[in-house]
């Protein structure tokens, strides 16, 4: 009997959206391992993270933003602006460590700019961040014009390209630390709970005494800050910056978050879901790349996956795939 109840608990877990994602992930990993001998090597596994590190780091904060029923389209441009600002400052002879600090401040200020217009002027985030998507990208181009900036200090490049602990690079460690911190904040703290409440119903949240405007300001500032950090990681990883760094990243990032089961209408989703979606997207792309399938087709496959992720729970396979209700936070 005990064995049976353990089985049914497991079955209950599989029924949630996260459970479905885990099954999909296992399937993809097994397929990849069977199809390509290079897949399961440590180098490939690290590479797989390393190549998309900027996107997956920003996807973590985007989870907060979308659960809050907002959207931040400006992240790709902020990654680009941060990378270019670092290049600009470095070329102007500013000490690299100071430059890193300044870039992070720029990120926070850019995010706060979004936040003020959204939270205090009351404009829709889609419109505000669309405008800053264009604006931040423009500033990036102003800073580097049509040059490429390279020749960063060796330690800075090493941070992005070499292993910090054994073969594991700094960026990967940063990703998991950020994930752990944000998991605690979203799933275990008052701020996280407020994020869900505001995302479910802003008016109700305001009646419940939550300062929704301040909350949104903090959220968007955080989004800008993390995007700027991702921009620095880009500069270190590639060792060069240009005006078109991270062009179009916003769509990939949002796709990852939505695939993770975060509702576009806000109020539901989990950090774990986003992590699983990130792993699925990375492994799927990597598997396809090993099979020589081109980038545009890969993106197309991810697109199909995105529609499927919303449709599947609806088709009343819901009974065994997890109904939308089970996609709500368990916390």
């Amino acid at each position, binding site marked *: 009997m005990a064995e049976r109840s353990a089985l049914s608990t497991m079955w209950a877990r599989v029924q949630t959206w996260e459970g479905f994602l885990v099954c999909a992930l296992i399937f993809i990993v097994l397929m990849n391992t069977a199809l390509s001998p290079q897949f399961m090597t440590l180098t490939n596994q690290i590479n797989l993270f390393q190549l998309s590190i900027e996107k997956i780091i920003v996807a973590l904060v985007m989870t907060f933003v979308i659960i809050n029923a907002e*959207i931040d*389209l400006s992240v790709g441009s902020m990654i680009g602006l941060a990378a270019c600002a670092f290049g600009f400052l470095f070329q102007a002879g500013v000490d690299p460590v100071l430059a890193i600090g300044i870039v992070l401040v720029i990120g926070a200020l850019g995010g706060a700019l979004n936040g003020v*217009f959204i939270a205090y*002027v*009351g*404009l*829709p985030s*889609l*419109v*505000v961040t*669309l*405008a*800053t*998507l*264009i*604006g*931040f*990208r*423009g*500033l990036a*181009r*102003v800073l580097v*014009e*049509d040059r490429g900036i390279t020749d960063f200090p060796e330690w800075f490049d090493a941070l992005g390209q070499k292993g910090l602990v054994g073969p594991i690079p700094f960026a990967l460690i940063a990703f998991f630390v950020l994930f752990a911190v944000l998991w605690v904040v979203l799933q275990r703290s008052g701020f996280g709970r407020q994020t869900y409440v505001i995302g479910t119903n802003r008016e109700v949240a305001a009646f419940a005494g939550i300062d929704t405007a301040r909350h949104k300001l903090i959220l968007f500032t955080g989004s800008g800050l993390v995007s700027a950090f991702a921009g620095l990681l880009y500069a270190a990883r590639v060792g060069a910056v240009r*005006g078109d760094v991270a062009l*179009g990243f916003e*769509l990939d990032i*949002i*796709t990852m978050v*939505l695939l993770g089961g975060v509702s*576009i*209408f806000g109020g539901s989703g989990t950090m774990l879901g986003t992590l699983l979606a990130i792993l699925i997207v990375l492994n799927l792309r990597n598997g396809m790349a090993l099979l020589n399938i*081109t980038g*545009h*087709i890969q*993106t*197309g*496959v*991810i*697109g*199909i996956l*995105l*529609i499927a992720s*919303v*449709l599947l729970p*609806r088709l009343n396979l819901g009974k065994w795939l997890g109904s939308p209700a089970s996609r709500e936070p368990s916390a």
Partner: protein
Amino acid sequence: MRFLASLNPQTLRILALLLVLALVVLFFSTQINNYLNGRLFNRISSSVAIMALIATAQTLVILTRNIDLSVGSVVGFTAFATGSMIASFPNLHPLLLVSYSMLIGACFGAFNGFFVAYARVPAIIVTLATLALFRSLLVEFADGRSITSSQLPQWLTSFPNTRLLEIGQFQFRASFVVAVIVVITVHIALQKLRAARKLYAIGSNPEAAAMAGINQKATVFIAFVCAGALAGLAGFMFLARFGNITVVAGLGFELKSVAAAVVGGVNIFGGSGTVLGALIGAVLVDLIETSLVRWPLVSEFWREAVLGALILTAVALDAIVMRRLIALRAAKHHEKREKEIGTEPVVEARDG
């Protein structure tokens, strides 16, 4: 202030946009030598023709509380497919070719519309996915080839710049005239046709629209199909204008079209806005972009930065001014009703 308050908010918005447009032209004419002449009009009018169509398509969808992020991919695919078609069958009748473009666009629109209206997947998710999907279809279809203008017949490549009408220095080129005719047709349809008014009804209050017996699913579906057909037409114009088409054609048009619509006063949450506004929005964005490149005081790299700032300012100002005006109208309406009743003012909670 009284006069302003008596105007319809939509008319007011268009007047305000025209005023801003005039101010921008005036400003740049003091900054750039030889700015204010017919060539400016000719330049802007021919470059805005494609975006005007895409912004119109976007507006139809936004009015119903949805969004179409796949328009850029639809434009790219249609331009490529139309190019291959005419390259294989050079004697095809122009009207057949245009219908072909619009049909392809409409099919893509129907795909989006089916998932949004009938499968009830949020438009932002569907079109985010089809943005990638349609582009990868194009990559498959193109298979490494690209369309070059030498493959295209003479009539097609010379069409956009054909001068239909010339008044002094002002040339009305075919592409611009077609775009304006389409925009005005759609505008009149949206204002006068009962079927088209459903878009506004659904966008401003879906529940009320459903209660009024409007078939929401069919209407949203048709909005996407029409938007697709317009994007297809834009693809045709894109092919005619540029001649050389690769798989990246139309990349990034989705966000530009949303920007043009929003600057033109189309409410991103549906229910209000006009395609005329979207056209002026597209002109404004294009005018600023083009003029900044010619402004000697700033380097051309400032173009996007200033554009972003301007969109943000325009939208913020619009929101603040409109809020005030609507409050003013409400107050006036209230005052009038008080006079009519002629008794103690009745304070209703929703007016305050």
